[in-house]
């Protein structure tokens, strides 16, 4: 991608740049609650990008990515709790490695399975992880969950007293997710994944090692999702198996990518930036009496997208964005 100063003078260049600058300065003036919403928006965009790599590009519909998420979360918290190991190592390195190993096992066992069978098998694996962590309460604290040991303000232990550092990390994660997805999309692997998604037999006939391509995609997705789990643990300070290994979370990863635009770089970003605020505000207005209402909205959107616009809202957003750019360049002339 060639970036020159010139390219920022046209709307196509300066609009994204402006967005980015606004994003960078938001923590300075946004109240805490809204900052929290932003953090969840950025964070879910990141884990949505992770799901998108295996679910969107490769077309392998995983309903069990929470398995990887939970490994990152528990890796971070338990290793700090027992051995005082920093979550950078406990969560990202060790939890991430565990996630990759799990992804290798999953791939070995499940890539031969077609559509619904693959989805169900990943669902089963996610649930097995959840039940296992529930069951082994001596080590994992079971259903009670476990709290992140308090370390104050510490980069080493990935804990901060204010929201701003979390915000910037979440922003960096989202940009990382977007970057990795973009790189994959443009590479040979990306082309292979799309080919496999559309016609695996034809792809193999022209030399594509589909098992290896899918495995790489799943392992990348697993590792990134585990990083997401570590971040989540360090941000919320409390994890339990029913949430971090939960089917609801797995579905939400997929939902964000699908509603936004499956198999595109911007899709999960759009999905997250739409769904998370919708959820927060639904919950805020309808309050605690009607918990779960936002999920009705989620489910409804999923149904609507699948039925009427399977390629996701990016179709409209793209058009809207083009129109906006036209408007700006028109204004200048």
């Amino acid at each position, binding site marked *: 991608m060639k970036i020159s100063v010139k390219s920022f003078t046209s709307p196509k260049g300066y609009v994204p740049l402006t967005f980015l600058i606004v994003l960078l300065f938001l923590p300075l003036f946004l109240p805490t609650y809204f900052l929290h919403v932003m953090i969840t928006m950025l964070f879910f965009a990141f884990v949505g990008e992770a799901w998108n790599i295996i679910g969107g590009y490769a*077309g392998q*519909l995983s*309903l069990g990515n929470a398995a990887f998420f939970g490994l990152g979360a528990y890796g971070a918290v338990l290793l700090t709790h027992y051995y005082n190991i920093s979550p950078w190592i406990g969560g990202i390195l060790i939890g991430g490695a565990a996630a990759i190993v799990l992804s290798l096992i999953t791939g070995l*066992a*499940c890539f*031969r*399975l*077609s*559509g*619904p*069978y693959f*989805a*169900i*098998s990943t*669902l*089963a*694996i996610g*649930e*097995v992880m959840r*039940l*296992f962590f*529930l*069951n082994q309460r001596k080590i994992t604290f079971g259903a009670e969950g476990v709290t992140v040991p308090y370390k104050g303000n510490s980069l080493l232990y990935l804990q901060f007293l204010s929201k701003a550092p979390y915000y910037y990390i979440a922003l960096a994660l989202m940009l990382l997710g977007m970057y990795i997805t973009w790189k994959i999309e443009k590479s040979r692997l990306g082309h292979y994944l799309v080919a496999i998604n559309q016609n695996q037999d034809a792809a193999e006939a022209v030399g594509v090692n589909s098992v290896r391509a899918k495995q790489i995609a799943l392992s990348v997705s697993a590792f990134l999702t585990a990083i997401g789990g570590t971040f989540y643990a360090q941000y919320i300070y409390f994890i339990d198996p029913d949430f971090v290994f939960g*089917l609801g979370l797995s*579905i939400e990863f*997929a939902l964000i990518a*699908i509603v936004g635009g*499956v198999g595109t770089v911007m899709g999960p970003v759009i999905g997250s930036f739409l769904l998370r605020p919708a959820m927060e505000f639904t919950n805020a207005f309808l309050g605690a009496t*009607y*918990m*779960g*209402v936002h*999920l*009705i909205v*989620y*489910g*409804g*959107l*999923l*149904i609507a997208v*699948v*039925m009427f616009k*399977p390629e996701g809202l990016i179709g409209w957003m793209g058009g809207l964005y083009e129109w906006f750019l036209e408007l700006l360049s028109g204004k200048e002339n």
Partner: protein
Amino acid sequence: MFDITTLTQAIVSGILMGAIYSLVSLGLTIIFGVVRIVNFAHGEFLMIGMYATYFLWARARIDPLIAILITGPLLFLIGAGIYKSLLRRVAAASDFSKIFLTVGISLVLQNIALLIFTANYWSVKTSYEKMVLSLWGISISYPRLIGFLGAVILSFLISLFLFRTDLGKAMRAVAQNREVAMLMGINPDRVYIIAVGLGSAVAGMTGTIIMPYFYVFPLVGVDFIVMCFAVAITGGLGNIKGTLLCGPIFGIAESLGILFIGADSGMIVTFLILILVLIFRPSGLLGEGRL
């Protein structure tokens, strides 16, 4: 430590529960066999059946055994309605659409239930709920026994329907070869509606049967859907005989798991068997079926 009586008790409990699993999975397998859609919302149809049974009992004092005559048609209409309005659009589309449409429906139904009924656990009380049958040292609670009998009778009636009636045969024809069925004058779309309606009705009626000994809450379907997948896939998706066979197998496996490993392990045993089946014989013990 585990004498023959305890073992037999576990196996008997497993068979009693297994018939229930067979029945509810039958609904899933019928829908897949005819329409080739894996209904991720199947557990929610069971849940609706349970709630309907609860309210028929709580408001109108209708005994669950009679309520079945209402919940069956009710769920049939709901299932058929969902097919006509939503599923029909994706019946010929990609796996992606089929999977996530039913996942979306599941989400919506679960949370509407949560919204309307709250997260509380409700149950019905029957005149026979405390009665226990004692046979050779084994005790069987009446509700479970009646549930078992109900499941067996319903499974039998449905098999009769599918294999002996014209409509049932039409369904199987469409499941086996849609084009030829059309040439024979069968309207596949109508058959699809009936298949989804029937599958949903089966799930709903199962809900009614188990109300006397199960609590209903918005997420009760989630536990059952996993078992449905396990039973239906192990038997062979779309394979009626396979599904009927595997219900008791999983019931017994779950029972024995609880007996030998521990209280929480029922689900884990189920999952592990499912994962093993998916790895080594994804088409199921008796093979994928066309009813």
